[in-house]
């Protein structure tokens, strides 16, 4: 039997189902691995070993009571980790921010509840850029997370902790959130699979809001089949989220393994220009070759408003954030800096509680919404958003899936972009249009450049994740790129 940390979540579940290993043994295995390796990686803000073991023991007991070892749900007994902006009852949920350092939610996010109900074991909460604002995990108020492929480089962000932990084999899979690439970009930089579902496919209830009209929770997994299996657990309508789509639940794994001969693949020329570094482009071109070998028809296409998308994103997202983050005022929970007068208390609390990037975006967003500037900034950004969305609508009339790089670069050295926010924002140039349009997109590994992983982004039609996963799976099987592992994994 392969070592647990090299197995996929589905393989681990199968092994538990076959009673080759107990849920408790699996949980202890990964907790031991985290204890041994996370000191250098720093992907977890917190682990919950006692809870995890207690949950695992209870699940083993349930399993012992079953006549058949076959479990519904497919991931029974598998451990997982959750980005620290997803609420977990009784476990601090900090958003990697000083202002929420002491916040313990009295409720579970819908995705966490569904995980528990499907018999999965939470190991801990992963590091992130503060309030999901960043592309490198360097904006965490607590510490930086490192990329397991090269500890001197960033894991990407903002779901950097989740991506690094999965890539390093510290946990079989994790959940992240994607507002402007925050699942896909770290998945790309860490060489794993990351899916940003269609807006409305997964409930946002319990996800601490950054930009409500863009946020989606998504899985970070070792391979595409795991990604589909996780979607089977977390996706589906939720009455607690008015923006969750009232669609019947579906089997995201159903089309995996199907032939993709004849599918039409569009390659947006805006994604293959100078913006992406040559090594990344060359990996993506190789991937297009693999798709052609599989019988896909690959053509260049256009998403003409791509160049405006980033600016629109950096108005809409901060505008919503300025409102979403206003509740952190020190009155009810989290950090409070006492003062004689309430406005002073707000000011002191927020000055001390928020990091520089969060403050930057709150100011940007407040400005964009202010009277006199609203039309010129926020309203115009909404118009651009409509145009970006239309670009995708038009492209999907002709193509089944759009393919390009996830990130313009591979993992960059820690500290190399922190002094220049705009340079950092450019990391999201290929991922934010997807959030603005609300469509689903997946990043799958497509090779290495300079020894660091490159991510291939595949974008699909709204609520057709099953199709997108089918194409991604076909590519992954043919290219063999998801078997690439950092030394941290192969060395054990």
């Amino acid at each position, binding site marked *: 039997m392969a070592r647990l940390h090299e197995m996929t979540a589905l393989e681990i579940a199968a092994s538990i189902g076959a009673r080759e290993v107990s849920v408790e043994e699996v949980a202890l295995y990964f907790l031991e691995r985290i204890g041994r390796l996370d000191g250098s990686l720093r992907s977890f803000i917190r682990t919950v070993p006692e809870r995890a073991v207690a949950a695992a023991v209870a699940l083993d007991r349930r399993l012992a009571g079953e006549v058949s070892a076959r479990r519904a749900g497919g991931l029974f007994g598998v451990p997982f980790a959750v980005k620290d902006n997803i609420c977990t009852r009784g476990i601090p949920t900090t958003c990697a921010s000083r202002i929420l350092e002491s916040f313990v939610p009295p*409720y579970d996010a819908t995705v966490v509840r569904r995980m528990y109900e499907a018999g999965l074991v939470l190991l801990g909460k992963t590091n992130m850029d503060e309030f999901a604002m960043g592309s490198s995990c360097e904006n965490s108020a607590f510490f930086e997370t490192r990329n397991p492929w090269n500890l001197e480089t960033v894991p990407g962000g903002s779901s950097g902790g989740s991506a690094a932990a999965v890539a390093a084999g510290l946990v079989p899979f994790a959940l992240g959130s994607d507002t402007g690439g925050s699942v896909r970009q770290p998945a790309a930089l860490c060489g794993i699979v990351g899916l940003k579902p269609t807006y409305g496919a997964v409930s946002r*209830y319990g996800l601490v809001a950054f930009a409500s009209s863009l946020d989606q929770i998504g899985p970070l997994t070792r391979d595409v089949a795991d990604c589909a299996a996780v979607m089977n657990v977390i996706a589906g309508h939720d*009455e607690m*989220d008015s923006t969750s789509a009232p669609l019947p639940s579906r089997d995201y794994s159903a089309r995996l393994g199907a032939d993709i001969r004849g599918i039409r693949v569009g390659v947006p020329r805006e994604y293959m220009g100078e913006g992406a570094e040559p090594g990344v482009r060359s990996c993506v071109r190789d991937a297009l070759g693999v798709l052609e070998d599989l019988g896909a028809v690959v053509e260049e296409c256009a998403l003409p408003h791509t160049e405006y998308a980033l600016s629109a994103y950096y108005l809409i997202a901060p505008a919503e954030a300025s*409102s979403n983050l206003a509740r952190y005022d020190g009155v009810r929970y989290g950090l409070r800096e006492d003062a004689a007068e309430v406005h002073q208390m707000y000011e002191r609390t927020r000055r001390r509680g928020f990091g520089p990037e969060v403050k930057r975006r709150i100011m940007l967003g407040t400005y964009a*919404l202010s009277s006199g500037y609203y039309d010129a900034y926020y309203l115009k950004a909404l118009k651009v958003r409509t145009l970006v969305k239309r670009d995708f609508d038009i492209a999907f009339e002709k193509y089944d899936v759009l393919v390009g790089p996830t990130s313009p670069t591979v993992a960059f050295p820690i500290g190399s972009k922190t002094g220049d926010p705009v340079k950092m924002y450019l990391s999201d140039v290929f991922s934010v249009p997807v959030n603005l349009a609300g469509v689903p997109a997946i990043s799958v590994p497509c090779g290495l450049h300079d020894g660091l992983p490159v991510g291939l982004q595949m974008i699909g039609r709204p609520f057709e994740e099953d199709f997108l996963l089918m194409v991604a799976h076909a590519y992954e099987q043919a290219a063999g790129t998801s078997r690439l592992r950092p030394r941290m994994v192969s060395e054990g």
Partner: protein
Amino acid sequence: MDSATAAEFEPVIGLEVHVELKTKSKIFCPCPTKFGAEPNTQVCPVCLGLPGVLPVLNEGAVELAVMAALALNCDIRPSSRFHRKNYFYPDLPKAYQISQYDHPLATGGWIEVGAGASRKRIGIKRLHLEEDAGKLMHEGSIETAARSLVDFNRCGVPLIEIVSEPDISSPEEAKEYLQVLKSILQYAGVSDCRMQEGSLRVDANVSVRPTGSAAFGTRTELKNIGSFRSVVRGLQYEIRRQIEVIRAGGEVLQETRHWDEQREVTVALRGKEEAHDYRYFPEPDLVPLHLDREWVESVRLKLPELPEARKRRFVSDYGLPEYDAGVLTASPSLAEFYERCVGLYGRGEGRPKTVSNWVMGELTRFLNANNIEIEEARVTPSHVVELLRLIEGGSISGKIAKAIFDRMCETGEMPSQIVRREGLGQISDESEIAAVVARVIEENPKVVGDYKSGKAQALGYLVGQVMKATGGRASPGLVNRVLRERLG
């Protein structure tokens, strides 16, 4: 202010009224809305605005808001949406209020005020849905409190805001507009409209302009109006103040002013509270609200009879004067009470008017004196009707009936029980009355002599003496007859 000055200027008034809807649960979460619960016992992560929560619109609140809008003759917009109104305040846990902004639920309504020739329409510009905030409580006075506490029970209670057109031309008319509005909303069953519990709140916009001018003067917004009385007092003060400013060559500033109930003045708010930029933007956590025509029509069918219609029916069905009908139908509960009385007592021989006299007279006086609503009193239509029957059957006099009315209302004891227990029943036994008559004749020889010498009014005095001696319980007709017989 002399009358010449008053005629020189005319006020222009518009009212913004916030009304709490009578839903069982809050607008975006399932918490109950009961008034008066222990602080922070009707809260959940959603209405406390904890990180990660999302609002889910309560359909019941939408239905009541639509009902209110229909009762106020508004057009229901087929599509409306919610916005966030952003500002920091400790009673506002999300630091934004979910409200409606440029796409309100309903527009273009009206109600009528005044009677006869001065009857007029006041336009309703818009009606929209929003959530209420919590309530700050200070330990001691606001200036000296060492700390303040927040009760979030009210936070997230559904509100409608009803904005009138600037069609109101006097403080008294503003009060009448509010009375009619309250009455309609109570009838429609959408709100209790209790100002003292805060389920009806009023802000007033007021300006003055030279009489007959078409242009508007600069307006001020009057807040902190706690009662219908202070609507009138506050507006009167503010109108006078603005006229004085203009006459002194000054300029009215556009500002928010607080009505100071104790000092009976309006005071300008300054500083931070004034400089608000609410940064409205569409609420991304809620989808636009689409109301299809059929559903709106189904709500319209549920709309109960409104005050105007009921008033007309009272005149035609019960033969009541318009005045009576107006008073009785001002609140649905009083009208309901009246109708149940008539239902029990019957409609013949001017009975509806008799009931009206008692309900408008004694009952209303009792309610006002105790500052309660009819549904809070122990008196029921059965009480009132039994009382009327006791009078009609000659068991008690009208005077006795009035005397026991309050006790009946306070204790809920049936009038027949009170009469029996306290021996208040009318004396119709001739021998008993004859004995009293004999005594009165004996004690008043002079008056008896006057009567016998032809002074007819002397009989009245003797009747009075008999009534006095019997504690008013003697049947006046019987006393008269016996006295005449004895005096020959």
